[in-house]
């Protein structure tokens, strides 16, 4: 228990300092930081905001796990945008090809197909790194550009809903529309399932142990007989699959269509990436950090309504936390080395 508290200390320090930075920025923008933070809390967790927070958190937590799973093995998956968009457009294509399926078959088909396409997009950079040494960090990122462009082309030309004058597809057939339970979408159930699978693999399966070991020391793990190249392929495919499903969850929820840019512009992928980094790739931590960052984002919009402070403050806070955390962790590591 004591060790766990000690492990959390750098995180709490980073959070505290980032909130301080935020307070200074609010003061400079001419607003009272106490009012500002109260607006963020009220706006994200209050009666008006909590369902928006849950909706956003589903997508951010998914994006966070898509990064956390590979990061656990020491791989940085920067290709989330391509994987997300690839999954989203696949779900639309499945719905266009098979419009008459009943919900019980249609939705799972679309989600699985989206997951498979996302997995392929995540798998390719890992394969290229293993076989020809192309750095995964860069190739996963660059691969996103052509995929995002292709999806944008499909939405603006072959799949365009010509009646609306907006770059969006037609509304998906009713079988592909995610059912809602009160104020919360069925997407929550899907995400809970994904979270459960990732946590079970991480905690209770040999694969999870091997992944963690690879992340701690790849050469040593390879030396002890684990096929680390295969692990890289699996975690990147797994991460890509989760991102692909998140893409499908976006288009199968309100407004039940693919609006060009709607998967990229809100920045789910990057918020998720920062959340995974804040959790240091721990899946349970990634869920907590994802909810926290989603709340911060929703609160940021409330902040903008209540004060003079633009909502971009929440992105600034998220990035600042990660930078300070990286520094605090490095200092910690140096200290513990000195003690030993």
């Amino acid at each position, binding site marked *: 228990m004591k060790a766990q508290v000690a492990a959390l200390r750098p995180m709490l320090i980073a959070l505290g300092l980032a909130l301080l930075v935020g307070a200074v920025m609010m003061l400079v923008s001419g607003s009272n930081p106490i009012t500002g933070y109260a607006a963020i809390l009220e706006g994200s967790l209050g009666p008006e905001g909590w369902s928006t927070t849950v909706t956003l958190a589903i997508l951010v937590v998914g994006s966070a796990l898509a990064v956390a799973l590979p990061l656990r093995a020491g*791989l940085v998956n920067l290709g989330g945008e391509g994987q997300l968009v690839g999954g989203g457009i696949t779900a639309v294509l499945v719905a266009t090809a098979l419009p008459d399926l009943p919900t019980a078959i249609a939705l799972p088909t679309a989600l699985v197909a989206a997951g498979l396409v996302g997995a392929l997009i995540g798998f390719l950079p890992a394969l290229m790194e293993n076989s020809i*040494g192309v750095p995964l960090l860069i190739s996963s990122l660059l691969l996103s*550009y*052509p995929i995002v*462009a292709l999806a944008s082309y499909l939405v603006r030309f072959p799949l365009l809903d010509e009646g609306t004058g907006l770059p969006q597809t037609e509304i998906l057939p009713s079988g592909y529309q995610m059912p809602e339970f009160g104020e919360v979408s069925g997407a929550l159930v899907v995400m809970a399932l994904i979270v459960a699978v990732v946590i079970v693999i991480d905690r209770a399966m040999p694969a999870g142990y091997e992944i963690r070991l690879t992340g701690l020391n790849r050469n040593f793990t390879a030396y002890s007989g684990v096929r680390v190249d295969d692990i890289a392929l699996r975690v990147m495919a797994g991460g890509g699959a989760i991102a692909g499903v998140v893409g499908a969850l976006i288009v199968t929820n309100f407004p039940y269509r693919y609006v060009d840019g709607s998967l990229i512009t809100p920045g789910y992928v990057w918020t998720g990436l920062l959340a995974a980094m804040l959790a240091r790739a721990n899946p349970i931590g990634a869920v907590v950090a994802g909810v926290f960052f989603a709340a911060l984002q929703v609160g940021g919009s409330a902040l903008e309504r209540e004060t003079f402070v633009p909502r971009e403050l929440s*992105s*600034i806070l998220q*990035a600042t936390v990660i930078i300070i955390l990286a520094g605090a*962790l490095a200092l910690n590591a140096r200290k513990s080395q000195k003690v030993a």
Partner: protein
Amino acid sequence: MEWGGIFDWALFESVLRALTPVLLAALAGLLCTRVGVFNIGLEGLMLIGCFAAVAGSWFSGNAWMGVAAAVLAGMAMAGILSYFSVTLGADAIIVGIALNLLAVGLTSFLVRTVLGAQGTFQDPDLKGLPLIFSQSPLTYLSLALVPAFVFFLRRTVWGFRLQGVGEVPGAARSLGINTHLYQHMVVVASGALCGLAGAQLSLGNVVLFSDNMTAGRGWVAVVAVMLGQAAPIGTLLAALLFGVTDAVGVRLQGQGLPSQFTTAAPYAITLIALIAVSVRARAVARHRARGGPTSGRGGSPPTPLPSTSPVTSTAQGDTTHV
């Protein structure tokens, strides 16, 4: 589509325009690589430069004040990277990625609070850089920097020391070189170069600021350094590949090709070039391992663990790559 009408003088000019920001940022990345810091924050440093250039020019009424502001802002931002990664020893990859995202949020925030615009700031009174033979002075500067870098790295004591710090820091330290000081100076200088790159983008290529206007050029610069193996001429050629694809793409778009394809093309070509170079590097390494002639530099001994590629270690903060 008329291919004959695509290659002309105007295309050459737009190639230079597209090349300049990428080349300046790539030269920044090259220096960092040589001194042993993997700087993937180029994108964010450039974006901060874009904003500072526009803000500086707007409030002073002078484009050169904008350039100065961009250089200072780039240096300040790079100072964060250098303090955290060199002094504290934090993972440069994590800090670099977070810096890129910080730059996106910070510039959007400042556009609204400082310039009072949302998304895009544009004004007829905003002064852009003067043009000399239809190019901004920064274009000539960037091209002049390439031979200057060759001279600096090959012929000056500082250049040699800088490379020594990157290649064998222990040996450099034993010769009395302050390795951290070299790394700090280089990273901050890279911020200045990225600031220039940003100024070229927002006061040279266009005269406006819009959210996330660097749109991945900093990442292309990171790849250009890899493709050019951190040598000035090679990096120039790699950046040129981007410039040509970008300019040809814009031209083809004018001829009716959907913009989705032409805007993605430079990134796709960059990725393909990276794959091609990696295949070749792998073939050369295999040739050497079989006992072929070891020509050139960097003949490293074969790794005892054939299944691990050295490249993956970049993900753990190691600075050796490609």
